[in-house]
C-alpha cells in the first residue's frame, strides 16, 4: 500500500481495498467515494447522509461503506467528514471532462468559471480545472465545497486546488536572509549571527554548527531550529541539503523520564 510508503493514498490503494466506485458507476452520475482507510472512530458521514447510503455500524471505528446504488452524490457527507476524506466524482458529464467535488477549508477568493490549478492527493499541481460550483451552506457548517471540471483522465486524481500562494510564501521565507540578531535556536538562545560565526570557523553542516554553538542541543533537539540552520548554511556556503545533512536522530523521540526509560513504572 503506497500510503504506508509515501504517506499519500493512491487510487490503486483504494481499488485494491475495494473501496473505489467502478468506472461504470461513475459514468452513470455523481457518486461519493470515502477515501477513509484507517480505523478512525467517527461516523458523521453515516449520520449526515439523507439517503442512508453510508454505513459504519455499531463499532464506529469501522470504515464507512458507501452504497453506490443509493448514493446520488449530493455532497452532504463531503462537508460532514471531519477528516476531509470524502469526495464526489462524476464521469457522466462528457467523454472528455468530468467533475470532482471536494471540501476546501482555506480562505480563498475563487469565483465560478475561474480556471485554477488542480492538485492531486499529494498537493501537487497536475492539470487545470474550471470551477463549476462553490457552495458554503449553513448545513455544511462553513465547509466550502468546490466542484471542479477537469479532464476526465484526472478525475481519479484531482482532490483539491493547488496552493500556489502558500508555496510561494515558503520559497520567500527560505530565501530570506535572517538578521544576525534573530534567535534561531530558542532552547539554547543561539542567534543567526552566532551560527554564521560558526560557519566562518569551519562548520559546513548541521553537526558542525551544533558542536560550535550548541544550536540544536536543547530541549527540542533541533526540531525548531534545524531547518533554519540548514537555510543559513545553504545561503553562506551554497552547500546542497545532502552535504548539510541533519543531526543524528537519537532515542528518545521526545523527553521521557529516566524512571520510565529504566522501566521502573511497574514498581
Amino acid at each position: 500500500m503506497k500510503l504506508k510508503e509515501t504517506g499519500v493514498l493512491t487510487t490503486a490503494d483504494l481499488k485494491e481495498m475495494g473501496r473505489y466506485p467502478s468506472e461504470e458507476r461513475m459514468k452513470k452520475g455523481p457518486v461519493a467515494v470515502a477515501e477513509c482507510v484507517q480505523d478512525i472512530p467517527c461516523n458523521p458521514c453515516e449520520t449526515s447522509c439523507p439517503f442512508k447510503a453510508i454505513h459504519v455500524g455499531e463499532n464506529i471505528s469501522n470504515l464507512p461503506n458507501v452504497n453506490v446504488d443509493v448514493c446520488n452524490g449530493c455532497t452532504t457527507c463531503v462537508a460532514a467528514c471531519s477528516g476531509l476524506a470524502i469526495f464526489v466524482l462524476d464521469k457522466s458529464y462528457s467523454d472528455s471532462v468530468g467533475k470532482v467535488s471536494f471540501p476546501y477549508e482555506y480562505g480563498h477568493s475563487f469565483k465560478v468559471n475561474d480556471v485554477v490549478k488542480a492538485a492531486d492527493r499529494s498537493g501537487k499541481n497536475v492539470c487545470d480545472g474550471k470551477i463549476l460550483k462553490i457552495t458554503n451552506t449553513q448545513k455544511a457548517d462553513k465547509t466550502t465545497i468546490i466542484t471542479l471540471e477537469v479532464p476526465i483522465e484526472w478525475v481519479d486524481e484531482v482532490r483539491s486546488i493547488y496552493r500556489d500562494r502558500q508555496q510561494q510564501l515558503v520559497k520567500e521565507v527560505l530565501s530570506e536572509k535572517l538578521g544576525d540578531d534573530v534567535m534561531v535556536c530558542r532552547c539554547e538562545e543561539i542567534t543567526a549571527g552566532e551560527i554564521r560565526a560558526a560557519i566562518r570557523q569551519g562548520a559546513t553542516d548541521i553537526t558542525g554548527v551544533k558542536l560550535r554553538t550548541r544550536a540544536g542541543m536543547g530541549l527540542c533537539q533541533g526540531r525548531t531550529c534545524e531547518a533554519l540552520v540548514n537555510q543559513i548554511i545553504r545561503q553562506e556556503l551554497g552547500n546542497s541539503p545532502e552535504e548539510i545533512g541533519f543531526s543524528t536522530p537519537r532515542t528518545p523521540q521526545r523527553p521521557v523520564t529516566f524512571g520510565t526509560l529504566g522501566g521502573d513504572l511497574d514498581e
Partner: protein
Amino acid sequence: MNKTYDVVIVGAGVIGTSCAYHLVKKGFQVALVEKKDLARETSSHCDAVALIPDKMPGIDAAMGYASIQRFKELEKELDYDFEFHQNGSLHLCETDQEMEIATKYANDLIAEGYAIDILNPQELLEKEPFLATDLKGGLFSHECCGVNPYKLCFAFVDAVEGKGLDVYTHTTVTDIKRDAENNVVGVETDKGILKTNKVVNCCGVWAPEIGKMVGIDIPIKPRKGVILISGAGFPICKQKIHEFGYMVSKFDDIQCERDPEAEKYNVAFTIEPSAGNNVLIGSSRNFDGYDVDAEIDIIRVIAKRAVRFLPILKDINCIRSYAGVRPFIEEHLPLITHVKEIPGYYIAAGHEGDGISMSPLTGRLISEMIAGEEPCMDVSPFSFSRYNK
C-alpha cells in the same frame, strides 16, 4: 595543496589536535588532515573527565595526574574556553565487597601521593544529598577535573591555526608514501600530496587503517559507550560521580559481584554535570564494531542504574542518547610511539576512554619525541615495540 610540512598529523580528534598544538609550539610547520571535521567522532561522542581514581596505580595514574596539571596550564594558555573545571570526583560503592576493594585500591593511590578521601555513607550524603541512602561509602578525589571534549579540540586548533598549522578538513588520506629505505616521505590524500618526513597517526579507532598503509598491524578495536543527556534544570550533582563498578567494567582484572544486567551490558553508572546545566549519564562498554547506535536495551540499563544511585533522576527528563566508539587496546596503555621500522611514522592512539584526559600529555610527548628531546616521562610502556617481544 602539494605543500611541504615538518609534520603531517592524520586525524583531528583530541589527540590529533593536541599533537598539532604542541608541535606548533615547538616551532614545527604542521598539517592536520581530517576526513570529516574537527572532533567529529570519538571526541564529540564521549564524556570528558580527567580522573585519578579510574586509573590503575602506577604509570596509568601518573599520566592522569600529569594530564590534570597540564590542563591547568592549558586553561591559561588557550584563549578558546574549553570549560575546564576542577571540582573533584566521587566513586560510589554499592556493596561491602566493593567498599573493601575500593579501600585497598584507594590506599595504593594514597601511598603514591594522590589526594583521595575514603568516605563513609554519612560523608557521602554530605557531599551529594540526592544520592541513594543505602550506599556503603565511596572515594572522593580532590584533583579530578573536567573539560568540554570537543571544545578542547577547537581550542587546540584555534590557538595555532595559521600560525604554523594548516588544517585540511574533509580530506581523506589515501596512502603514506615511503622511500626505498622505508622512510616516510609524504602523505597522499584525495586532494593532493603533502610532503613530509614525519607523520603522526592519531586516528583512534581508525588508526589500524592508517597502519595498514605502511604494513603494520595496530591492535586497536572500537569499544562502544552509550551516554544519556538530561534536560537542563537545577543542579542534581556538584561533581562527577561514578559507581566504583565502573572500574570493574573498565578493567577485567578487578573482579566483584554486580547487578547481572549491568554486568551483561558492562554498564556502570557515571554522571557528570555540564556547563549547559544538563547532566551526562553513562555508560556502557561493549564491542559492536564501528556501530554507534544507542541500543534501547543499553539505554534502559543505564537509566535503571542511574535511578538506583540517584533516585531523584526518576522524575527528570532524558532528552537524548548518544554513543561513540573508543579506541580499545588490550593492555589499557595507549600507543605514543615512533615506529622504528618505518622511520618518521608515529602513532598516538589507543587511549580508550582516557583520550580526552590524556590528550595534553600525549601531545606533549609526541612533540618532545619529534623534537628529539628527552620526553617528560618514561615512554617505554607506550612503545609500539612492545608487540615485538
